[in-house]
């Protein structure tokens, strides 16, 4: 899989794209669910597609956490942000690390699964890495039914040397396929100059029925919860899948 530029050449800019606070409310919701499902105690968990590790950072106090990502550069970013937490470079569709956890978390990185086959493989990976009765928690940005064409987001952050403005635009060129597009522009200001870069992300877009069917087929019992924690007005979804 070819990496998007954000996770490769622009990985160094990731801390200027967002920060841990953007994930705090949602992480709390996920922790509440894990506590409800697994009971008290310090459980093991792995976050796959950990990216910059902002989401993971909310779990490391209460869980024995591991992170994995396809991008070595993002693993480095996350490791710096979550020191002492073990990380693995791996593709969530095919990785096998020979360990089982109480929970597998896959935040919006799941959106990079573009076909039903990708999704199924990832669910099989999660299943393989879960203890019996363990939980997969995942959160697609959209279902086919909830996709909003033309969503725009932007944010500007500075570290004193570089000021980054990123502009995101989400759309769906072909409503008949299983993907939508997210175009990102990076406006990078440094040393009195502006540089503009473009990065096109292709994201999976599947119906609610597809998610439930594939999870069931790969050996999970599925529960779906809705929340309204996103500041862009989008309705959020959390899929809670228990290994049978």
């Amino acid at each position, binding site marked *: 899989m070819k990496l998007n530029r954000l996770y490769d050449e622009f990985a160094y800019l990731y801390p200027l794209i967002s920060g841990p606070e953007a994930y705090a409310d949602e992480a709390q919701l996920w922790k509440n669910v894990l506590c409800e499902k697994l009971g008290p105690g310090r459980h093991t968990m792995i976050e796959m597609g950990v990216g910059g590790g902002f989401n993971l950072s909310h779990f490391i106090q209460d869980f024995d956490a591991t992170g994995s990502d396809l991008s070595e550069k993002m693993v480095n970013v996350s490791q710096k942000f979550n020191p002492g937490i073990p990380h693995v470079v791996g593709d969530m569709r095919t990785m096998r690390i020979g360990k089982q956890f109480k929970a597998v978390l896959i935040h919006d990185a799941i959106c990079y699964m573009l076909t039903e086959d990708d999704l199924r493989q990832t669910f099989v990976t999660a299943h393989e890495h879960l203890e019996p009765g363990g939980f997969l928690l995942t959160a697609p940005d959209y279902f086919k039914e909830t996709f909003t064409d*033309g969503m*725009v987001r*932007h944010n*500007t952050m500075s570290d004193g040397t570089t*000021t980054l*403005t990123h*502009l995101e*635009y989400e*759309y769906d*060129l*072909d409503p008949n396929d299983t993907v939508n*597009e997210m*175009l990102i*522009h990076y*406006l990078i*200001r440094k040393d*009195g*100059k*502006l540089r*503009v870069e*473009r990065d096109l992300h292709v994201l999976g877009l599947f119906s609610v029925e597809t998610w439930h069917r594939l999870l069931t087929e790969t050996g999970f019992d599925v529960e779906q919860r809705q929340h309204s924690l996103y500041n862009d007005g989008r309705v959020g979804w959390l899929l809670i899948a228990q290994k049978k």
Partner: protein
Amino acid sequence: MKSNRLYDEFAHLYYLIDPPADHAGEAARWKAVLREKLGKGRHNILDLGSGGGSHLSHFVDEFDAVAVDLSPEMIKLSSTLNPSVEHLQGDMRTLRLGRKFDAVLIHDAIGYMLNEDDLLSTFKTAFEHLNYGGLIITTPDYVKENFQDARVAHHTALDVKTTLAYFEYVYDLDRADTTFEMLMLYVIREDGKMRTERDMHTLGLFPLERWTKLMRTAGFEVEAVKEERGINHPDGHAGEWMFVGVK
């Protein structure tokens, strides 16, 4: 990066970016000033840097207008939108029509004046084309005092053929000069395909005191009027200062 493409090769996207309806509120403020200074009647006005004519379209029912712009493509658009208006091609710094008007309007096109000489030349053009007692109204996007570095504005619109997402980013690379930069990004979806285009605009940035001083130098009595609006206004501080000069 290429500059000012909006007024030429992307003229066909103009009304998706700057629809006439968006100017209704501001045009009403300008008309109130015109009525206050000129009184009732069908006065004649000269609109300099009329662009696509979106702003002008709110004046044509009540005033006899002549519109001038540098860009032939913009003149074509504005002529279609405002068929009753006489349109001429010209540069607001050097234009001399040999005719007088009751008012000269220069909307945000004044922003393309990049130095004090340009600005003063334009005010002199306005003065030359006004009757005694006539007035100029102009509104830059920003003055030095309210400039918002790294401000993003965006807008999406569609017509039968095109879905456009438009992004605008204003910034000032060199605070010591009299300009700032505006980067425009067009994300154009047509026939199931997407393309992106960039367009760089360089715009003048002067302190309030310089605006009023140059208008006085050209011969005007000047009022600077600030529209009070909250920081959450969709346009931020853009366009909050209106300069009115009376000959």
